[in-house]
């Protein structure tokens, strides 16, 4: 009798655990999923050795013309797409090593970055990117497409880029270029 009761309680307990797990796993539909879950499978399966590097290309404006210019960098490889994408933006914020211009106010920080399974990278910057921005069509284009091109060029699974500021959607950086839609990369703005 006693063992039967223990057995029933045991079964009920396991059922409860299963239900709790199911509840928490299925509830996240409306939320934007954190990056770790949506890393594209092919990248995740690439097992990278610690200390291995990969080449990336960053896009900077230049004093000589109104185009963006490519600058190659070596950075530490990471198994996670998101980690590599974050590093890429950090490198971009650190500025050029070849004397190109920085399209960011110096105080700008990367707050967060995630990539949806549809291939949209959400990049969240600190408020300085807007508050201290030069404001002007040309300067806003330079800022936007140095970010967008630098992500889309290096990561095949990033198709579009959505720029967030201080955790939310903002209309523009300084009154011109709309940030309310995701951007496709624009390589016609890049020097040959």
């Amino acid at each position, binding site marked *: 009798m006693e063992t039967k009761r223990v057995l029933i309680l045991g079964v009920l307990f396991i059922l409860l655990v299963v239900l709790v797990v199911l509840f928490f796993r299925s509830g996240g539909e409306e939320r934007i999923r954190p990056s770790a879950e949506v890393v594209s499978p092919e990248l995740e399966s690439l097992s990278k050795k610690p200390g291995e590097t990969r080449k990336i290309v960053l896009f900077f404006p230049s004093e000589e013309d109104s185009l963006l210019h490519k600058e190659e960098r070596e950075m530490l490889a990471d198994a996670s797409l998101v980690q590599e994408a974050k590093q890429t933006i950090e490198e971009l914020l650190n500025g050029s090593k070849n004397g190109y211009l920085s399209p960011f106010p110096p105080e700008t920080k990367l707050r967060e970055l995630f990539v949806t399974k549809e291939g949209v990278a959400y990049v969240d910057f600190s408020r300085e990117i807007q508050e201290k921005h030069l404001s*002007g*069509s*040309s*300067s806003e284009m330079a800022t936007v497409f140095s970010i967008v091109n630098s992500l889309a060029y290096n990561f095949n699974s990033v198709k579009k880029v959505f720029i967030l500021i201080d955790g939310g959607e903002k209309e523009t950086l300084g*009154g011109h270029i*709309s940030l309310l839609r995701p951007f*496709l990369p624009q390589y016609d703005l890049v020097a040959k």
Partner: protein
Amino acid sequence: MVRIGPNVPFRIQRRAFKSRVIQSMTWSRGKDYYLLNIRIKHSNFSYDYFSLNNPHKLVIDISLHDEKNSKEDKILKGKEVLRKEEPRKEFPSRSSREIKTVVIDPGHGGLEIGAKGKFGTAEKDITLDISFKLKAIIERNLAFRVVMTREKDIDISLDNRTAIANNNRADLFISVHANSSYRKEASGPETFFLSQKATDEEARRLAYLENNSAELEEGIDRENEEEIQMILWDMAQASYLRQSSQLAESIQKELNLLLGTTDRGIKQAPFKVLAGVACPAVLVEVAFLSNADEEKKLGTEEFQSNVAQAVFQGLVNYLKLHSQE
């Protein structure tokens, strides 16, 4: 009362309507017509209506005659848009109206100063000065109505600028700006029109809407439908891109000619203020405030007048081009 032919598919929205101005909106049906009853919460009001094409829209502007509510009303104006499938024939269409309207949009204003030169010149002041000069030249030379999105140093949201253009049934929209660049050397005028690289998903959705509007109204739930309407409104400029590029080209040519500046050409960019404008629309960056020489020039009457004259000449050339068509 809307009279409709027997074969015209006509579907009616029965969704609840929330507004501070409108108490209720109801439809009733007769043998060959529908009656739309709009109950207004206030007694002292006037209204105006007009239709827009692609997609067909009937827009009703309701203005309350009470100073206290006027600001609120302005905001509502842009939003109270009803969609239906058959435009009413008795509405004056854009092309049949005799007097054309040009809307000039002086960039920035109020707390939003825009670009700033190193000698302290603010973009918002330059854009307003040039816009006033442009308005005067147009009014002196053409039988056009000129509306400015602002005539003072005040904040106006980008959405409201677009709404002012559409509510005034603008035939042409010109946004005036002064540029800035990270390059100290960057110089010269640039005229932009909208680039709307519709993503695949959006392009598909638009194509679907164009082909299946009847089916769409049946098959889509309320929330999705609102989103789609918003996207369409947001993409109003998409159907004017060809004319907008011609207007841009025409203005840029005159700016280069009159100012003897290096040709920076016409460019496309996803400008927020242009996206929803339902007529040919351009944004003119007259010179660079980030360039010390150009900043000095931008502050002079002479340069401002030259710029206004060049933009006007570009506009005239564009109109000539289109009167021949």
